[in-house]
């Protein structure tokens, strides 16, 4: 196959590209320039998008003796991921930009360009497995990675079968330790590069501060769950349902117990806080479901996960149609925010996902 390896400059995508080469594919490395104004050096735990990362990716490609190019997808990334991120927070929701990036950049803009340039697949360093299905066409099934701690199937649950058919995830059956050791053995300089965390386009990790710069101060009131004002804020967009820290409430709770954000209401610019129990939900409603294979049926027993490294909870599908998905949870979960991605599993297989509505 002709394979386009997306190389971020990190250890995972470098080893993934190396394995694609070993598998006998004709591999070309591409680093995606996603930032309009890249920083010179990597800071903290951000693992892509700096000039240093582009250089690391280039050096890895040199070692693998594969052609390497930098493709500019910064405008697309700004429109499809960064502006979506800002818009979602401004609407009182909590988006996952990595899910958006996979859905709209890596397996959309990049994959479309790759296919048009006669590639057969895009290879990434995601920890997830593709297993050939038992249908006549062998449509690939998306499964969790073997290394549960690194599993990234959650952020890929937005890829329909026609996208998965052109994806290659060579690291799904390997633990991170083994990947690092393999990088070392292959002489890749990125073998000991720290893992990346958080949001790649927010360099200092301060999401609230970054949003405040992009959206400007919007002072408003923090109320308790009975509508009494208990504090003030500089922008409801800076709050996430389930958040406990940084509320700076002037009025203590009557029972003296910690309070959590229960709701963010952009229309009235109000943040509602209350006790932890009020965060519990036993039913989840998602919109715009995307299925990685056949859609589940009402009554199906599934596992659900609502955040990238959250735990899986048993549930039953109660409603499923083109625009809506509802599940009843076997036990309540806490701190679920609108905008988060609801991912459905059956065993290790990813069934699909929907965006949680309020």
């Amino acid at each position, binding site marked *: 196959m002709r394979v386009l390896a997306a190389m971020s400059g990190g250890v995972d995508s470098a080893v993934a590209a190396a394995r694609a080469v070993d598998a006998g594919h004709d591999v070309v490395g591409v680093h995606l*320039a996603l930032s309009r104004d*890249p920083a010179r050096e990597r800071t903290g735990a951000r693992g892509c998008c700096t000039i240093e990362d582009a250089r690391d990716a280039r050096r890895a490609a040199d070692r693998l003796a594969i052609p390497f190019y930098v493709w500019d997808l910064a405008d697309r990334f700004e429109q499809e991921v960064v502006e979506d991120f800002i818009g979602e927070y401004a609407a009182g929701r909590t988006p996952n930009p990595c899910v958006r990036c996979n859905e709209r950049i890596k397996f959309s803009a990049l994959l479309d360009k790759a296919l048009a*340039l006669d590639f057969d697949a895009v290879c990434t360093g995601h920890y997830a497995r593709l297993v050939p299905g038992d249908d006549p066409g062998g449509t690939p099934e998306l499964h969790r990675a073997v290394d549960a701690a690194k599993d990234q199937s959650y952020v890929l649950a937005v890829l329909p079968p026609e996208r998965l058919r052109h994806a290659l995830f060579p690291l799904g059956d390997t633990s991170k330790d083994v990947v690092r050791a393999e990088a070392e053995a292959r002489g890749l300089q990125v073998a000991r590069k720290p893992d990346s965390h958080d949001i790649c386009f927010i360099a200092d990790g301060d999401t609230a501060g970054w949003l405040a710069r992009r959206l400007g101060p919007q002072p408003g009131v923090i109320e308790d769950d009975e509508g009494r004002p208990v504090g003030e804020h500089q922008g409801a967009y800076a709050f996430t349902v389930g958040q406990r820290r940084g509320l700076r409430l002037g009025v203590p709770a009557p029972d003296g117990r910690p309070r959590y954000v229960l709701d963010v209401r952009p229309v009235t610019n109000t943040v509602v806080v209350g006790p932890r129990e009020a965060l519990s939900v036993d039913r989840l409603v998602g919109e715009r479901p995307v299925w990685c294979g056949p859609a589940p049926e009402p009554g199906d027993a599934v596992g659900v996960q609502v955040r990238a490294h959250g735990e899986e909870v048993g549930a039953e599908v109660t409603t499923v149609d083109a625009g809506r998905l509802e599940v009843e949870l076997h036990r309540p979960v806490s701190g679920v925010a609108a905008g988060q991605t609801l991912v459905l599993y059956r065993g290790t297989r990813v069934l699909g996902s929907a965006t949680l509505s309020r």
Partner: protein
Amino acid sequence: MLPEAVAAMVDELGRVGNASSLHTSGRRARRVVEEAREALAAAVDAGPSEVIFTGGGTEADNLAVKGLFWARQADRPRRRIIVSAVEHHAVLDPVEWLAAEEAADVHWLGVDARGRVRVDELRAALAEDPDDVALVSVMWANNEVGTVQPVADVVEAAHRHGVPVHSDAVQAFGSLPVSFARSGVDCLTVSAHKIGGPTGTGALVVRRGLDLVPVLHGGGQERGARSGTLDAPSVRAFAVAADVVTRFQAEAAARTARLRDDAVDAVLAVVPDAVLRGDPDPAGRLPGNAHFTFPGCEGDSLLYLLDARGVECSTGSACQAGVPQPSHVLLAMGVGPGEARGALRFSFGYTSTPADVDALATAIGPSVARARRAGLAAARH
């Protein structure tokens, strides 16, 4: 590198001696450097004392622009710099630095659709306040689209007001006849690696009597204008290459231009809507330069597709991360940013062969067709 230049460099690398030292091996190294200086001077039609060796074209451009700007402040302030908008970054960026750090007032000289500077605009800009102009800088020939600049007219206009002229001849030297003496320019940049010499070596040719404030301070070599121990192996190889290319310039240029013309014909035959940028008259452009924009194509897609078919070309300049950028040269010529993204430059030189042209003729059609499909795929969203 030219084999003659490699041989000279390897021979010299095995010898000991610092050209600034007074002992025997120092004197020997000094003789090598001075003979190289004389040979390079002969090749560019200048006096030996007018040659200042540098660590490449970029350094020579920096020395010319900053050194001349600073020197021209000695008797009275002169804030203005008139510079063409299509210069190489080695000129553009020092000028921008002077504007940002030293309050220089920059007039970016426009170009026509062929990429030739507008001399009438230069005359008008000079006439505004000639006593306040520190320098004029216009390249001999453009590195991207190959357009040869009207340097004689530029010199005539500037000298009428006593304003010194710098010209970056990095692309022109070796490809076109370049006579420092006859051109009348006050300082001229040349680079070794563009003529089959070593990388990291160049020279600024400076008219006798023209003051320059140094950029590099130190041991006072090169008439105090450029400190640093002279690199005898590199300047010797530079001089050898300069001698070879100037002796064979006319026939090499004719041969290269024939290959280039064949390549242009081949590309336009296969891709009729490709647009040849720069001067359509072959006499008005560098003999080895063919520059096109391909409508509906991204330069990076084309670069990849041609590279995969064994044809190496250039999209122009890239940012530090390696992203191809819309060329400032094309933008100055009035080409829109969308069209500028589909730009590719094909360069021909003494190693080029008719087989290279055939390879391009075979590869360009399918590559453009596929790059267009990729461009449409990207536009669909």
